[in-house]
Protein backbone atom coordinates (compact mmCIF):
# COMPACT_ATOMS: atom_id res chain seq x y z
CA UNK A 1 0.00 0.00 0.00
CA UNK A 2 3.05 2.19 0.32
CA UNK A 3 2.90 2.72 -3.43
CA UNK A 4 -0.28 4.73 -3.47
CA UNK A 5 1.66 7.76 -2.26
CA UNK A 6 4.24 7.34 -5.00
CA UNK A 7 1.79 7.50 -7.86
CA UNK A 8 2.03 11.29 -7.89
CA UNK A 9 5.47 11.08 -9.48
CA UNK A 10 4.26 10.15 -12.94
CA UNK A 11 1.61 12.01 -14.89
CA UNK A 12 0.48 10.85 -18.32
CA UNK A 13 3.02 12.95 -20.20
CA UNK A 14 5.88 11.91 -17.94
CA UNK A 15 4.97 8.33 -18.43
CA UNK A 16 4.90 8.63 -22.18
CA UNK A 17 8.37 10.12 -22.00
CA UNK A 18 9.56 7.32 -19.76
CA UNK A 19 8.12 4.59 -21.90
CA UNK A 20 9.96 5.84 -24.92
CA UNK A 21 13.12 6.36 -22.86
CA UNK A 22 13.44 2.72 -21.95
CA UNK A 23 13.72 1.51 -25.50
CA UNK A 24 14.87 3.61 -28.40
CA UNK A 25 12.76 3.18 -31.52
CA UNK A 26 15.66 1.68 -33.45
CA UNK A 27 15.79 -1.23 -31.00
CA UNK A 28 12.44 -2.48 -32.16
CA UNK A 29 11.22 -3.96 -35.41
CA UNK A 30 8.00 -2.56 -36.82
CA UNK A 31 5.17 -3.38 -34.46
CA UNK A 32 2.52 -5.78 -35.67
CA UNK A 33 0.10 -4.30 -33.18
CA UNK A 34 -0.03 -0.78 -31.90
CA UNK A 35 -2.07 0.66 -29.10
CA UNK A 36 -2.60 4.42 -29.08
CA UNK A 37 -3.94 6.18 -25.97
CA UNK A 38 -6.31 3.28 -25.37
CA UNK A 39 -8.72 3.74 -22.46
CA UNK A 40 -11.18 1.17 -21.26
CA UNK A 41 -14.12 1.24 -18.85
CA UNK A 42 -16.23 -1.47 -17.26
CA UNK A 43 -19.31 0.63 -16.61
CA UNK A 44 -17.94 3.49 -14.53
CA UNK A 45 -14.75 1.67 -13.60
CA UNK A 46 -11.90 3.18 -15.59
CA UNK A 47 -9.81 0.02 -16.00
CA UNK A 48 -7.17 1.14 -18.49
CA UNK A 49 -5.61 4.61 -18.79
CA UNK A 50 -3.99 5.82 -22.00
CA UNK A 51 -2.24 2.60 -22.96
CA UNK A 52 0.23 3.29 -25.75
CA UNK A 53 2.58 0.57 -26.85
CA UNK A 54 3.72 -1.37 -29.89
CA UNK A 55 3.94 -5.15 -29.96
CA UNK A 56 7.06 -6.11 -31.95
CA UNK A 57 6.77 -8.74 -34.65
CA UNK A 58 8.09 -12.29 -34.15
CA UNK A 59 8.90 -11.73 -30.51
CA UNK A 60 7.40 -12.54 -27.16
CA UNK A 61 5.97 -9.63 -25.27
CA UNK A 62 5.12 -10.24 -21.63
CA UNK A 63 2.59 -8.16 -19.73
CA UNK A 64 3.21 -8.29 -15.99
CA UNK A 65 1.73 -6.61 -12.95
CA UNK A 66 -0.24 -7.36 -9.81
CA UNK A 67 -3.79 -8.74 -9.92
CA UNK A 68 -6.39 -6.31 -11.16
CA UNK A 69 -3.83 -4.07 -12.87
CA UNK A 70 -5.50 -4.33 -16.28
CA UNK A 71 -3.09 -6.60 -18.13
CA UNK A 72 -5.74 -9.21 -18.94
CA UNK A 73 -8.26 -6.49 -19.77
CA UNK A 74 -5.77 -5.09 -22.26
CA UNK A 75 -5.06 -8.52 -23.73
CA UNK A 76 -8.76 -9.21 -24.21
CA UNK A 77 -9.17 -5.82 -25.88
CA UNK A 78 -6.80 -6.89 -28.62
CA UNK A 79 -9.16 -9.53 -30.04
CA UNK A 80 -12.26 -7.62 -28.97
CA UNK A 81 -13.40 -10.19 -26.44
CA UNK A 82 -14.99 -7.28 -24.59
CA UNK A 83 -17.59 -6.87 -27.34
CA UNK A 84 -19.98 -9.02 -25.37
CA UNK A 85 -19.24 -7.51 -21.95
CA UNK A 86 -22.18 -5.35 -20.89
CA UNK A 87 -21.17 -1.81 -20.04
CA UNK A 88 -17.76 -2.04 -21.65
CA UNK A 89 -16.52 0.97 -23.64
CA UNK A 90 -13.24 2.40 -24.81
CA UNK A 91 -11.53 5.36 -26.37
CA UNK A 92 -8.31 5.45 -28.34
CA UNK A 93 -7.09 3.05 -30.97
CA UNK A 94 -5.61 -0.36 -31.37
CA UNK A 95 -4.11 -0.99 -34.79
CA UNK A 96 -3.33 -4.37 -36.28
CA UNK A 97 -0.89 -3.93 -39.19
CA UNK A 98 -1.86 -0.29 -39.27
CA UNK A 99 -5.62 -0.85 -39.50
CA UNK A 100 -7.91 -0.11 -36.58
CA UNK A 101 -9.42 -3.21 -35.02
CA UNK A 102 -12.46 -1.10 -34.14
CA UNK A 103 -12.84 0.38 -37.61
CA UNK A 104 -16.06 -0.08 -39.57
CA UNK A 105 -14.21 -2.18 -42.15
CA UNK A 106 -13.01 -4.64 -39.52
CA UNK A 107 -14.98 -7.83 -39.20
CA UNK A 108 -14.62 -9.14 -35.67
CA UNK A 109 -14.80 -12.75 -36.83
CA UNK A 110 -11.92 -12.24 -39.27
CA UNK A 111 -10.04 -10.30 -36.61
CA UNK A 112 -10.27 -13.18 -34.15
CA UNK A 113 -9.16 -15.58 -36.84
CA UNK A 114 -6.04 -13.46 -37.28
CA UNK A 115 -5.48 -13.10 -33.53
CA UNK A 116 -5.45 -16.41 -31.71
CA UNK A 117 -6.03 -16.70 -27.99
CA UNK A 118 -5.07 -19.20 -25.32
CA UNK A 119 -6.84 -18.94 -21.99
CA UNK A 120 -5.85 -19.24 -18.37
CA UNK A 121 -7.40 -22.65 -17.89
CA UNK A 122 -7.22 -25.21 -20.68
CA UNK A 123 -10.63 -25.19 -22.35
CA UNK A 124 -10.65 -27.89 -25.02
CA UNK A 125 -14.04 -28.71 -26.51
CA UNK A 126 -15.58 -32.04 -25.53
CA UNK A 127 -14.64 -33.36 -28.97
CA UNK A 128 -11.81 -35.55 -30.19
CA UNK A 129 -8.24 -34.26 -30.26
CA UNK A 130 -8.48 -34.08 -34.03
CA UNK A 131 -11.78 -32.21 -34.06
CA UNK A 132 -10.47 -29.73 -31.51
CA UNK A 133 -7.60 -28.76 -33.78
CA UNK A 134 -9.69 -28.92 -36.94
CA UNK A 135 -12.29 -26.64 -35.36
CA UNK A 136 -10.84 -23.35 -36.61
CA UNK A 137 -10.00 -24.43 -40.16
CA UNK A 138 -13.46 -25.98 -40.56
CA UNK A 139 -15.22 -22.98 -39.07
CA UNK A 140 -13.35 -20.49 -41.19
CA UNK A 141 -13.21 -22.71 -44.26
CA UNK A 142 -9.43 -22.33 -44.34
CA UNK A 143 -8.63 -25.73 -45.77
CA UNK A 144 -10.09 -28.24 -48.16
CA UNK A 145 -11.24 -31.44 -46.54
CA UNK A 146 -8.30 -33.36 -47.94
CA UNK A 147 -5.76 -30.82 -46.65
CA UNK A 148 -7.28 -30.81 -43.19
CA UNK A 149 -5.33 -33.79 -41.75
CA UNK A 150 -2.03 -32.15 -42.78
CA UNK A 151 -3.06 -28.91 -41.23
CA UNK A 152 -4.06 -30.60 -37.98
CA UNK A 153 -0.76 -32.49 -37.87
CA UNK A 154 1.21 -29.31 -38.54
CA UNK A 155 -0.55 -27.46 -35.75
CA UNK A 156 -0.05 -30.33 -33.33
CA UNK A 157 3.65 -30.53 -34.26
CA UNK A 158 4.04 -26.78 -33.75
CA UNK A 159 2.44 -27.16 -30.35
CA UNK A 160 4.89 -29.99 -29.53
CA UNK A 161 2.01 -32.36 -28.94
CA UNK A 162 2.08 -34.53 -32.05
CA UNK A 163 4.37 -37.21 -30.64
CA UNK A 164 2.10 -37.69 -27.64
CA UNK A 165 -1.27 -37.79 -29.39
CA UNK A 166 -0.53 -39.12 -32.89
CA UNK A 167 -2.14 -42.46 -32.04
CA UNK A 168 -5.01 -41.05 -30.01
CA UNK A 169 -6.43 -38.38 -32.31
CA UNK A 170 -9.91 -39.86 -31.93
CA UNK A 171 -9.90 -39.74 -28.16
CA UNK A 172 -11.62 -36.84 -26.42
CA UNK A 173 -9.37 -33.83 -25.93
CA UNK A 174 -10.65 -33.57 -22.39
CA UNK A 175 -9.05 -36.93 -21.55
CA UNK A 176 -5.52 -35.51 -21.95
CA UNK A 177 -3.48 -34.28 -18.99
CA UNK A 178 -3.69 -30.61 -18.02
CA UNK A 179 -0.46 -29.67 -19.72
CA UNK A 180 -1.40 -31.61 -22.85
CA UNK A 181 -4.81 -29.94 -22.86
CA UNK A 182 -3.17 -26.53 -22.80
CA UNK A 183 -0.89 -27.50 -25.70
CA UNK A 184 -3.98 -28.80 -27.48
CA UNK A 185 -5.55 -25.37 -27.02
CA UNK A 186 -2.38 -23.80 -28.42
CA UNK A 187 -2.55 -26.19 -31.38
CA UNK A 188 -6.19 -25.28 -31.86
CA UNK A 189 -5.26 -21.60 -31.96
CA UNK A 190 -2.32 -22.24 -34.32
CA UNK A 191 -4.48 -24.19 -36.76
CA UNK A 192 -6.04 -20.87 -37.73
CA UNK A 193 -2.53 -19.65 -38.62
CA UNK A 194 -2.96 -16.42 -36.68
CA UNK A 195 -0.69 -13.39 -37.06
CA UNK A 196 -0.71 -12.79 -33.35
CA UNK A 197 -1.11 -15.20 -30.45
CA UNK A 198 -2.50 -13.89 -27.17
CA UNK A 199 -1.93 -15.96 -24.05
CA UNK A 200 -3.65 -15.17 -20.78
CA UNK A 201 -1.58 -16.74 -18.00
CA UNK A 202 -1.38 -19.98 -19.97
CA UNK A 203 0.62 -21.78 -17.28
CA UNK A 204 -1.20 -20.72 -14.15
CA UNK A 205 -3.18 -23.96 -13.94
CA UNK A 206 -0.20 -26.18 -14.77
CA UNK A 207 2.53 -27.94 -12.80
CA UNK A 208 6.19 -26.86 -13.16
CA UNK A 209 7.07 -29.54 -15.71
CA UNK A 210 4.11 -28.76 -17.95
CA UNK A 211 4.95 -25.08 -17.50
CA UNK A 212 8.51 -25.67 -18.66
CA UNK A 213 7.27 -27.48 -21.79
CA UNK A 214 4.99 -24.58 -22.67
CA UNK A 215 7.80 -22.08 -22.13
CA UNK A 216 10.12 -24.04 -24.44
CA UNK A 217 7.30 -24.15 -26.93
CA UNK A 218 6.83 -20.37 -26.79
CA UNK A 219 10.48 -19.76 -27.59
CA UNK A 220 10.14 -22.13 -30.55
CA UNK A 221 6.92 -20.49 -31.74
CA UNK A 222 8.29 -16.96 -31.80
CA UNK A 223 10.30 -17.85 -34.88
CA UNK A 224 7.08 -17.69 -36.85
CA UNK A 225 4.53 -16.01 -34.58
CA UNK A 226 4.14 -12.86 -32.56
CA UNK A 227 3.16 -13.68 -29.00
CA UNK A 228 1.71 -11.56 -26.22
CA UNK A 229 1.62 -13.33 -22.88
CA UNK A 230 0.06 -12.14 -19.66
CA UNK A 231 1.76 -13.65 -16.67
CA UNK A 232 1.74 -13.39 -12.90
CA UNK A 233 5.05 -15.09 -12.81
CA UNK A 234 7.93 -12.64 -13.12
CA UNK A 235 10.52 -15.39 -13.53
CA UNK A 236 8.50 -16.62 -16.48
CA UNK A 237 8.44 -13.17 -18.04
CA UNK A 238 12.19 -12.87 -17.49
CA UNK A 239 12.89 -16.33 -18.93
CA UNK A 240 10.84 -16.29 -22.11
CA UNK A 241 10.01 -12.77 -23.19
CA UNK A 242 11.90 -10.31 -25.35
CA UNK A 243 9.85 -7.31 -24.30
CA UNK A 244 7.98 -6.64 -21.09
CA UNK A 245 5.26 -4.19 -20.17
CA UNK A 246 4.57 -3.50 -16.51
CA UNK A 247 0.95 -2.62 -15.72
CA UNK A 248 -0.08 -1.02 -12.46
CA UNK A 249 -3.61 0.13 -11.53
CA UNK A 250 -4.66 0.43 -15.15
CA UNK A 251 -1.53 2.23 -16.34
CA UNK A 252 1.29 0.97 -18.48
CA UNK A 253 4.06 2.09 -16.17
CA UNK A 254 6.97 0.88 -18.19
CA UNK A 255 7.55 -0.97 -21.44
CA UNK A 256 10.88 -2.12 -22.77
CA UNK A 257 13.37 -4.82 -23.58
CA UNK A 258 12.92 -7.49 -20.96
CA UNK A 259 16.48 -7.66 -19.76
CA UNK A 260 16.69 -3.93 -19.41
CA UNK A 261 13.39 -3.69 -17.59
CA UNK A 262 14.38 -6.35 -15.13
CA UNK A 263 17.94 -5.14 -14.51
CA UNK A 264 17.61 -1.38 -14.84
CA UNK A 265 13.96 -0.40 -14.47
CA UNK A 266 13.45 3.29 -14.96
CA UNK A 267 10.37 3.59 -12.76
CA UNK A 268 10.55 2.99 -9.03
CA UNK A 269 7.20 1.16 -9.08
CA UNK A 270 8.57 -1.31 -11.61
CA UNK A 271 11.57 -1.80 -9.42
CA UNK A 272 9.44 -2.29 -6.35
CA UNK A 273 7.34 -4.89 -8.16
CA UNK A 274 10.11 -6.91 -9.78
CA UNK A 275 12.12 -6.98 -6.57
CA UNK A 276 9.07 -8.41 -4.83
CA UNK A 277 8.31 -5.52 -2.52
CA UNK A 278 4.61 -5.80 -3.43
CA UNK A 279 2.27 -7.73 -5.67
Amino acid sequence: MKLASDSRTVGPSDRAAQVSQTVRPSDRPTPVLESRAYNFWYGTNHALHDISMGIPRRAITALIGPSGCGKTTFLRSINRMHDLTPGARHTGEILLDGASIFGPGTDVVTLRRRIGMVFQRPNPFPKSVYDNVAYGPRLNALAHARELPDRVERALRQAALWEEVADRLREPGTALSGGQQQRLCIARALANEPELLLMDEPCSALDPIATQRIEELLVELKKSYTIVIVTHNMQQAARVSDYTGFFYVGNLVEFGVTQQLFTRPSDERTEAYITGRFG
Partner: protein
Amino acid sequence: MSSFPIEGVPPGRPSAETRWRSLVGNDRSDRVYRNVLTGLALALPALILIILGVLFMGALPALKRFGPSFIWTSTWDPVAEVYGAAPMIFGTLASSFLALLIAVPLALSVAIFLTEFSPRWLRQPVGFVIELLAAIPSVVYGTWGIFVLIPFLRAHVVPPLKAVLGWTPFFHGVFYGNSLLAGGIILAIMIVPYIAAVSREVLLAVPGSQREAALAMGATRWEAVRSAVLPYGRAGLIGAVILGLGRALGETMAVTMVIGNRHDIGVSVFQPAYTMAAAIANEFSEATTHLYLSALFEVGLILFVLTVVVNAIARILIWRVARGQAVGSQAL
Protein backbone atom coordinates in the same frame (compact mmCIF):
# COMPACT_ATOMS: atom_id res chain seq x y z
CA MET B 1 -1.50 -7.35 11.83
CA SER B 2 -1.20 -7.77 15.57
CA SER B 3 -0.42 -11.31 16.66
CA PHE B 4 -3.30 -13.34 18.02
CA PRO B 5 -2.64 -15.09 21.36
CA ILE B 6 -2.99 -18.65 20.11
CA GLU B 7 -0.41 -19.71 22.71
CA GLY B 8 -2.95 -18.81 25.38
CA VAL B 9 -5.30 -21.68 24.48
CA PRO B 10 -5.13 -24.36 27.18
CA PRO B 11 -3.68 -27.70 26.01
CA GLY B 12 -6.73 -29.73 26.96
CA ARG B 13 -8.99 -27.87 24.50
CA PRO B 14 -11.96 -30.02 23.36
CA SER B 15 -11.79 -31.06 19.72
CA ALA B 16 -14.27 -29.68 17.19
CA GLU B 17 -15.97 -33.06 17.13
CA THR B 18 -16.53 -33.08 20.90
CA ARG B 19 -17.86 -29.54 20.86
CA TRP B 20 -20.29 -30.39 18.07
CA ARG B 21 -21.52 -33.43 20.01
CA SER B 22 -22.08 -31.30 23.09
CA LEU B 23 -24.16 -28.92 20.98
CA VAL B 24 -26.41 -31.48 19.33
CA GLY B 25 -26.12 -34.62 21.41
CA ASN B 26 -28.27 -34.89 24.43
CA ASP B 27 -31.16 -32.52 24.18
CA ARG B 28 -34.46 -34.41 24.18
CA SER B 29 -36.35 -32.04 21.89
CA ASP B 30 -33.51 -32.23 19.39
CA ARG B 31 -33.77 -35.98 19.33
CA VAL B 32 -37.52 -35.90 18.79
CA TYR B 33 -37.18 -33.30 16.05
CA ARG B 34 -34.49 -35.30 14.31
CA ASN B 35 -36.51 -38.50 14.43
CA VAL B 36 -39.64 -36.82 13.10
CA LEU B 37 -37.73 -35.30 10.18
CA THR B 38 -36.01 -38.59 9.42
CA GLY B 39 -39.35 -40.37 9.43
CA LEU B 40 -40.95 -37.82 7.11
CA ALA B 41 -37.99 -37.91 4.74
CA LEU B 42 -38.11 -41.69 4.55
CA ALA B 43 -41.89 -41.66 4.05
CA LEU B 44 -41.55 -40.28 0.51
CA PRO B 45 -39.44 -43.08 -0.97
CA ALA B 46 -41.60 -45.53 0.98
CA LEU B 47 -44.69 -44.04 -0.63
CA ILE B 48 -43.35 -44.85 -4.09
CA LEU B 49 -42.83 -48.46 -3.08
CA ILE B 50 -46.31 -48.61 -1.54
CA ILE B 51 -47.89 -47.23 -4.73
CA LEU B 52 -45.98 -49.77 -6.77
CA GLY B 53 -47.13 -52.52 -4.42
CA VAL B 54 -50.79 -51.47 -4.50
CA LEU B 55 -50.76 -51.22 -8.30
CA PHE B 56 -49.18 -54.63 -8.55
CA MET B 57 -51.66 -56.25 -6.14
CA GLY B 58 -54.57 -54.63 -7.95
CA ALA B 59 -53.26 -55.72 -11.33
CA LEU B 60 -52.61 -59.31 -10.23
CA PRO B 61 -55.90 -60.83 -11.50
CA ALA B 62 -55.44 -59.24 -14.93
CA LEU B 63 -51.79 -60.24 -15.01
CA LYS B 64 -52.75 -63.83 -14.27
CA ARG B 65 -55.58 -63.90 -16.79
CA PHE B 66 -53.95 -62.22 -19.80
CA GLY B 67 -50.23 -62.52 -19.14
CA PRO B 68 -47.91 -60.39 -21.28
CA SER B 69 -50.37 -60.43 -24.21
CA PHE B 70 -52.18 -57.61 -22.38
CA ILE B 71 -49.57 -55.30 -23.84
CA TRP B 72 -50.02 -56.18 -27.51
CA THR B 73 -53.66 -57.14 -27.90
CA SER B 74 -56.21 -54.52 -28.92
CA THR B 75 -59.56 -55.80 -27.75
CA TRP B 76 -61.04 -53.84 -24.86
CA ASP B 77 -64.42 -55.41 -24.21
CA PRO B 78 -65.86 -55.05 -20.69
CA VAL B 79 -68.90 -57.13 -21.67
CA ALA B 80 -66.88 -60.12 -22.80
CA GLU B 81 -64.26 -59.43 -20.10
CA VAL B 82 -61.40 -59.33 -22.61
CA TYR B 83 -58.82 -56.62 -22.15
CA GLY B 84 -55.80 -55.57 -24.21
CA ALA B 85 -54.03 -52.26 -23.70
CA ALA B 86 -52.22 -51.90 -27.03
CA PRO B 87 -54.35 -48.95 -28.30
CA MET B 88 -53.74 -46.96 -25.11
CA ILE B 89 -50.04 -47.73 -25.05
CA PHE B 90 -49.87 -46.73 -28.71
CA GLY B 91 -51.92 -43.59 -28.11
CA THR B 92 -49.79 -42.60 -25.13
CA LEU B 93 -46.54 -43.04 -27.04
CA ALA B 94 -47.86 -41.48 -30.25
CA SER B 95 -49.31 -38.38 -28.58
CA SER B 96 -46.15 -37.91 -26.51
CA PHE B 97 -43.93 -38.35 -29.55
CA LEU B 98 -46.01 -35.85 -31.51
CA ALA B 99 -45.78 -33.45 -28.56
CA LEU B 100 -41.98 -33.77 -28.45
CA LEU B 101 -41.79 -33.21 -32.19
CA ILE B 102 -43.53 -29.86 -31.74
CA ALA B 103 -42.23 -28.85 -28.31
CA VAL B 104 -38.51 -29.62 -28.59
CA PRO B 105 -37.60 -27.12 -31.33
CA LEU B 106 -39.76 -24.50 -29.65
CA ALA B 107 -38.40 -25.04 -26.15
CA LEU B 108 -34.77 -25.25 -27.27
CA SER B 109 -35.16 -22.03 -29.24
CA VAL B 110 -36.53 -20.33 -26.16
CA ALA B 111 -33.71 -21.64 -23.96
CA ILE B 112 -31.01 -20.68 -26.46
CA PHE B 113 -32.53 -17.26 -26.95
CA LEU B 114 -32.77 -16.63 -23.22
CA THR B 115 -29.24 -17.74 -22.36
CA GLU B 116 -27.29 -16.63 -25.42
CA PHE B 117 -29.01 -13.87 -27.34
CA SER B 118 -31.66 -12.12 -25.30
CA PRO B 119 -30.91 -8.68 -23.90
CA ARG B 120 -30.27 -8.99 -20.20
CA TRP B 121 -33.42 -7.12 -19.12
CA LEU B 122 -35.63 -9.48 -21.10
CA ARG B 123 -34.34 -12.72 -19.60
CA GLN B 124 -36.17 -12.64 -16.30
CA PRO B 125 -39.62 -11.60 -17.57
CA VAL B 126 -39.68 -14.01 -20.52
CA GLY B 127 -38.34 -16.88 -18.43
CA PHE B 128 -40.91 -16.11 -15.75
CA VAL B 129 -43.86 -16.09 -18.14
CA ILE B 130 -42.78 -19.36 -19.72
CA GLU B 131 -42.50 -21.02 -16.35
CA LEU B 132 -45.92 -19.62 -15.52
CA LEU B 133 -47.33 -21.73 -18.37
CA ALA B 134 -46.58 -24.75 -16.20
CA ALA B 135 -48.83 -23.37 -13.47
CA ILE B 136 -52.00 -23.29 -15.58
CA PRO B 137 -54.35 -26.11 -14.49
CA SER B 138 -54.58 -28.97 -16.91
CA VAL B 139 -58.35 -28.71 -17.23
CA VAL B 140 -57.98 -25.13 -18.43
CA TYR B 141 -55.71 -26.31 -21.22
CA GLY B 142 -58.32 -28.95 -22.05
CA THR B 143 -61.12 -26.44 -22.21
CA TRP B 144 -59.01 -24.12 -24.33
CA GLY B 145 -58.27 -27.09 -26.55
CA ILE B 146 -61.95 -27.83 -27.10
CA PHE B 147 -63.14 -24.29 -27.68
CA VAL B 148 -60.13 -22.62 -29.32
CA LEU B 149 -57.56 -25.09 -30.56
CA ILE B 150 -59.81 -27.63 -32.28
CA PRO B 151 -61.91 -25.03 -34.19
CA PHE B 152 -58.67 -23.31 -35.18
CA LEU B 153 -57.17 -26.58 -36.41
CA ARG B 154 -60.31 -27.38 -38.35
CA ALA B 155 -60.38 -23.99 -40.05
CA HIS B 156 -56.74 -23.14 -40.63
CA VAL B 157 -54.40 -26.07 -40.10
CA VAL B 158 -56.05 -29.25 -41.32
CA PRO B 159 -57.05 -28.06 -44.83
CA PRO B 160 -53.51 -27.02 -45.85
CA LEU B 161 -52.04 -30.12 -44.18
CA LYS B 162 -54.39 -32.31 -46.16
CA ALA B 163 -53.71 -30.45 -49.37
CA VAL B 164 -49.97 -30.91 -49.08
CA LEU B 165 -49.52 -34.12 -47.11
CA GLY B 166 -52.91 -35.75 -47.51
CA TRP B 167 -51.38 -38.54 -49.61
CA THR B 168 -49.33 -39.81 -46.64
CA PRO B 169 -51.04 -42.16 -44.17
CA PHE B 170 -50.30 -39.75 -41.32
CA PHE B 171 -52.62 -37.05 -42.63
CA HIS B 172 -55.23 -39.27 -44.18
CA GLY B 173 -58.96 -39.40 -43.59
CA VAL B 174 -61.54 -37.23 -41.89
CA PHE B 175 -60.54 -34.78 -39.18
CA TYR B 176 -62.73 -35.59 -36.19
CA GLY B 177 -61.75 -32.61 -34.06
CA ASN B 178 -60.96 -34.67 -31.02
CA SER B 179 -57.88 -36.39 -32.33
CA LEU B 180 -54.30 -37.44 -31.87
CA LEU B 181 -53.26 -34.15 -33.48
CA ALA B 182 -55.20 -32.04 -30.98
CA GLY B 183 -53.88 -34.13 -28.08
CA GLY B 184 -50.30 -33.85 -29.31
CA ILE B 185 -50.49 -30.09 -29.70
CA ILE B 186 -52.03 -29.56 -26.26
CA LEU B 187 -49.34 -31.77 -24.76
CA ALA B 188 -46.65 -29.85 -26.63
CA ILE B 189 -47.83 -26.56 -25.18
CA MET B 190 -47.90 -28.09 -21.72
CA ILE B 191 -44.38 -29.53 -21.81
CA VAL B 192 -42.64 -26.56 -23.44
CA PRO B 193 -42.15 -24.82 -20.07
CA TYR B 194 -40.49 -27.87 -18.53
CA ILE B 195 -38.15 -28.49 -21.42
CA ALA B 196 -37.36 -24.78 -21.79
CA ALA B 197 -36.68 -24.26 -18.07
CA VAL B 198 -34.41 -27.29 -17.72
CA SER B 199 -32.62 -26.58 -21.01
CA ARG B 200 -31.98 -23.06 -19.81
CA GLU B 201 -30.40 -24.38 -16.61
CA VAL B 202 -28.28 -26.77 -18.64
CA LEU B 203 -27.10 -24.05 -21.02
CA LEU B 204 -26.33 -21.76 -18.09
CA ALA B 205 -24.17 -24.55 -16.65
CA VAL B 206 -22.01 -24.65 -19.79
CA PRO B 207 -18.81 -22.85 -18.76
CA GLY B 208 -18.20 -19.43 -20.27
CA SER B 209 -14.73 -20.65 -21.24
CA GLN B 210 -16.32 -22.89 -23.88
CA ARG B 211 -18.08 -19.93 -25.48
CA GLU B 212 -14.92 -17.85 -25.30
CA ALA B 213 -12.89 -20.63 -26.88
CA ALA B 214 -15.26 -20.74 -29.84
CA LEU B 215 -15.51 -16.96 -30.18
CA ALA B 216 -11.75 -16.55 -29.98
CA MET B 217 -11.39 -19.00 -32.85
CA GLY B 218 -13.44 -16.71 -35.05
CA ALA B 219 -16.89 -18.18 -34.48
CA THR B 220 -19.95 -15.98 -34.73
CA ARG B 221 -22.26 -16.13 -31.73
CA TRP B 222 -24.55 -18.57 -33.49
CA GLU B 223 -21.60 -20.75 -34.54
CA ALA B 224 -20.35 -20.70 -30.94
CA VAL B 225 -23.74 -21.89 -29.71
CA ARG B 226 -24.02 -24.60 -32.34
CA SER B 227 -20.48 -25.90 -32.26
CA ALA B 228 -19.50 -25.40 -28.61
CA VAL B 229 -22.41 -24.70 -26.25
CA LEU B 230 -24.93 -27.24 -27.54
CA PRO B 231 -22.47 -30.15 -27.85
CA TYR B 232 -21.17 -29.47 -24.35
CA GLY B 233 -24.67 -29.52 -22.90
CA ARG B 234 -25.88 -32.34 -25.11
CA ALA B 235 -26.49 -34.91 -22.39
CA GLY B 236 -28.38 -32.42 -20.24
CA LEU B 237 -30.46 -31.22 -23.16
CA ILE B 238 -31.44 -34.79 -23.97
CA GLY B 239 -32.30 -35.12 -20.28
CA ALA B 240 -34.54 -32.06 -20.51
CA VAL B 241 -36.34 -33.56 -23.51
CA ILE B 242 -36.83 -36.88 -21.74
CA LEU B 243 -38.14 -35.05 -18.70
CA GLY B 244 -40.69 -33.43 -21.00
CA LEU B 245 -41.50 -36.87 -22.36
CA GLY B 246 -42.13 -38.09 -18.82
CA ARG B 247 -44.58 -35.25 -18.31
CA ALA B 248 -46.33 -35.95 -21.58
CA LEU B 249 -46.71 -39.65 -20.87
CA GLY B 250 -48.47 -39.06 -17.58
CA GLU B 251 -50.56 -36.01 -18.47
CA THR B 252 -54.23 -36.87 -18.08
CA MET B 253 -56.94 -34.23 -18.00
CA ALA B 254 -56.17 -32.01 -20.96
CA VAL B 255 -55.44 -34.98 -23.18
CA THR B 256 -58.59 -36.81 -22.14
CA MET B 257 -60.60 -33.76 -23.16
CA VAL B 258 -59.26 -33.49 -26.71
CA ILE B 259 -57.85 -36.83 -27.85
CA GLY B 260 -61.17 -38.53 -28.60
CA ASN B 261 -60.90 -41.54 -26.27
CA ARG B 262 -61.37 -44.32 -28.79
CA HIS B 263 -59.81 -47.77 -28.37
CA ASP B 264 -58.23 -47.89 -31.77
CA ILE B 265 -54.81 -47.81 -33.34
CA GLY B 266 -54.72 -45.46 -36.30
CA VAL B 267 -51.74 -44.02 -38.12
CA SER B 268 -53.50 -40.81 -39.10
CA VAL B 269 -53.12 -37.96 -36.63
CA PHE B 270 -56.64 -36.83 -37.61
CA GLN B 271 -58.19 -39.87 -35.94
CA PRO B 272 -59.23 -40.11 -32.31
CA ALA B 273 -56.99 -42.10 -30.01
CA TYR B 274 -56.70 -43.02 -26.36
CA THR B 275 -54.00 -42.76 -23.72
CA MET B 276 -53.40 -44.89 -20.66
CA ALA B 277 -53.92 -41.96 -18.31
CA ALA B 278 -57.14 -40.98 -20.08
CA ALA B 279 -58.49 -44.51 -19.91
CA ILE B 280 -57.91 -44.76 -16.18
CA ALA B 281 -59.53 -41.39 -15.55
CA ASN B 282 -62.53 -42.14 -17.77
CA GLU B 283 -63.28 -45.72 -16.89
CA PHE B 284 -62.42 -46.14 -13.25
CA SER B 285 -65.91 -45.18 -12.10
CA GLU B 286 -67.49 -47.53 -14.64
CA ALA B 287 -65.31 -50.48 -13.80
CA THR B 288 -67.93 -52.66 -12.20
CA THR B 289 -66.35 -56.07 -12.43
CA HIS B 290 -63.31 -57.29 -10.59
CA LEU B 291 -61.40 -58.05 -13.76
CA TYR B 292 -62.24 -54.70 -15.40
CA LEU B 293 -60.85 -52.90 -12.35
CA SER B 294 -57.81 -55.12 -12.37
CA ALA B 295 -57.17 -54.37 -16.06
CA LEU B 296 -57.20 -50.65 -15.28
CA PHE B 297 -54.76 -51.28 -12.43
CA GLU B 298 -52.46 -53.01 -14.85
CA VAL B 299 -52.67 -50.04 -17.23
CA GLY B 300 -51.71 -47.88 -14.25
CA LEU B 301 -48.81 -50.16 -13.44
CA ILE B 302 -47.47 -49.96 -17.00
CA LEU B 303 -47.82 -46.18 -17.00
CA PHE B 304 -46.15 -45.89 -13.60
CA VAL B 305 -43.15 -48.00 -14.55
CA LEU B 306 -42.81 -46.21 -17.90
CA THR B 307 -42.83 -42.72 -16.40
CA VAL B 308 -40.54 -43.61 -13.49
CA VAL B 309 -37.98 -45.11 -15.85
CA VAL B 310 -38.20 -42.18 -18.26
CA ASN B 311 -37.85 -39.64 -15.46
CA ALA B 312 -34.94 -41.50 -13.89
CA ILE B 313 -33.06 -41.47 -17.20
CA ALA B 314 -33.78 -37.77 -17.59
CA ARG B 315 -32.55 -36.92 -14.09
CA ILE B 316 -29.33 -38.87 -14.49
CA LEU B 317 -28.54 -37.11 -17.76
CA ILE B 318 -29.24 -33.67 -16.30
CA TRP B 319 -27.14 -34.33 -13.20
CA ARG B 320 -24.20 -35.30 -15.29
CA VAL B 321 -24.15 -31.93 -16.99
CA ALA B 322 -24.87 -29.99 -13.82
CA ARG B 323 -21.94 -31.75 -12.16
CA GLY B 324 -19.75 -31.02 -15.17
CA GLN B 325 -19.26 -34.67 -16.01
CA ALA B 326 -20.77 -34.56 -19.44
CA VAL B 327 -17.47 -33.74 -21.07
CA GLY B 328 -16.03 -36.18 -23.52
CA SER B 329 -17.72 -38.36 -26.05
CA GLN B 330 -18.43 -40.97 -23.40
CA ALA B 331 -21.37 -38.81 -22.31
CA LEU B 332 -23.86 -41.01 -24.08
